[in-house]
């Protein structure tokens, strides 16, 4: 069994032709350029603060010390920020998945008065983002009394027209015969949606979920606008504002940055295939 699998995996590989050698060397060189900044951050985080700013600068720490890492856990609120990031991203992802799957299906497969007008309005919403309408969005959230709250951070991130559009496109492609067979058997809309549509669209839903999680985990602008309470900040936000405020401690800043980036990188290493498919899928759906 194992040998058979290995054989099938080995067979398509060709030998080292000169062009493959050149391409692989080129690929390695480019990868080194891409990874060097991250390696630099990692090495800096293991230096002492004084060594980090030493001139001339050098890659490897002369003296490896975990001082920056212990410092961020002892003095800062980085664990708070981590938990906040997790709460916000998980809630945003869950809400977006449920609401945009329902809406995508509603727009693709049910008929109701005013549907096309509403769909047009949602499409127009693709052009609105916190970057474009930050100040009015902030005053709206202020009016609702949600400044400096979890809900204030979460809910405004939960109306992405793009995700509805992607799922709408996908549901349109699901053969109607599948649904109609179930209708004849007496199943209602909701049952059809839950037992036929949702299982069929798992890859699309995974793509939307992954993409929403990445953008929510990394979102800086909206949490930055809606809270300046260090206890409520998310990772990107806390690192950029609090850790940058009183004389930057570079080793600690790099350690904190890696803490913010590592969860997604680890997830990516394990779920690479799904994430790549997801990003390509969500992106390409924009066509």
């Amino acid at each position: 069994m194992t040998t058979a699998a290995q054989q099938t995996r080995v067979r398509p590989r060709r030998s080292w032709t000169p062009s493959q050698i050149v391409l692989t060397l080129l690929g390695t060189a480019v990868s080194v350029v891409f990874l060097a900044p991250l390696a630099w951050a990692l090495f800096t985080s293991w230096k002492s603060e004084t060594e980090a700013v030493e001139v001339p600068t050098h890659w490897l720490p002369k003296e490896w010390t975990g001082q920056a890492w212990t410092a961020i856990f002892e003095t800062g609120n980085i664990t708070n920020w981590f938990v906040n990031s997790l709460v916000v991203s998980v809630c945003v992802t869950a809400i977006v998945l449920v609401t945009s799957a329902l809406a995508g299906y509603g727009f693709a497969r049910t008929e109701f008065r005013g549907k096309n007008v509403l769909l047009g309005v949602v499409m127009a919403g693709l052009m609105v983002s916190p970057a474009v309408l930050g100040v009015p969005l902030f005053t709206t959230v202020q009016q609702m009394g949600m400044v400096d709250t979890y809900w204030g951070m979460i809910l405004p991130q939960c109306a992405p027209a793009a995700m509805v559009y992607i799922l709408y496109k996908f549901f349109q492609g699901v053969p109607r015969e599948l649904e109609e067979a179930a209708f004849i058997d007496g199943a209602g809309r909701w049952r059809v949606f839950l037992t036929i549509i949702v299982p069929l669209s798992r890859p699309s839903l995974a793509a939307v979920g992954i993409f929403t999680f990445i953008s929510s985990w990394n979102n800086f602008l909206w949490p930055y606008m809606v809270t300046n309470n260090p206890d409520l900040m998310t990772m990107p936000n806390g690192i950029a504002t609090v850790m940058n405020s009183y004389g930057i401690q570079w080793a600690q800043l790099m350690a904190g940055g890696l803490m913010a980036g590592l969860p997604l990188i680890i997830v990516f290493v394990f779920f690479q295939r799904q994430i790549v498919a997801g990003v390509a899928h969500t992106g390409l759906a924009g066509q």
Partner: protein
Amino acid sequence: MTTTSAETVIRPARAKTAAGSPAVRRGQGFQHGVWFTAPFLVLFALFVIWPLLRGLYLSLTDANISGDGTSFIGLDNYTEALDDPLVWESLGHSAYFTLLVVPCITVLAFLLAMLAHHIERGKWLWRLCFFMPFLLPSTVAANLWQWLFNPGTGMINHVFGLETPWLTDKSYAMPAIVITTLWWTVGFSFLLYLAALQGIPAHLYEAAELDGANAWHRVVHITLPMLRHVTGLVVALQILASLQVFDQAVVIQDFGPGPEGSTRTFVQYTLEQGFTSYRVGYASAVSIIFFVIIAAVALARMWLLRNREEGVR
């Protein structure tokens, strides 16, 4: 073209359900449709439509952040904005950033995708390397490059033997942000290109090879034309995202406007007006102008796409 085909697909199906089921079904359909879309539409109305309308209203007032003593002042904010040199300057900075980023990212993403697509071994490794920076939060990427660009202790000047004052000189400050952005976001467009490359049917290349086309000809006459669609998508997405640049630019400059205000972007200016000067009315007017610009770009793309489709078919 698209609408007619959609209609022909939908109409027979509609006719079937209408004929196969009594009018009661239709009434049910109405209710179901509303309930399916309602949760999203409520959030959408509260956090997209309402802020847009509110922004329009506020832009006609002299509102401040506390909301007290607001009075209607007509189009005064708009006339002021059109005369405000900082509006034009910051718009120019965002446009300059866009002009630098979009071509670079498109070409780089294409080249990286070609590389990763054609190396036969370790595909997952190349994908990982080129895409990884995209997984970092914008602020972390910006802090990292702020540190790399540091003239004394940073690695860039050290490795290349330069003494460039990257972040403190007017002419280098924006290119530094562009380099940061390239490294951080090229992975996304790279994946789009890679997916598109994998979708090109192999028989096209085989046929060309039989006809004696060399590698260069195959790229120019097969790969590039087959990638036209995804290139349009990458360019459009990048233009829209780049015009809205904010995170990297402020973090790398410690939340300031950069040397001689040279990296103050349009988004940054609206937030400065709203949250630093507390001029919510004026900030809303500037935001609405920005919204019109973004919408114009998006509509221009849709118009171009429609023309192209008509031309092809």
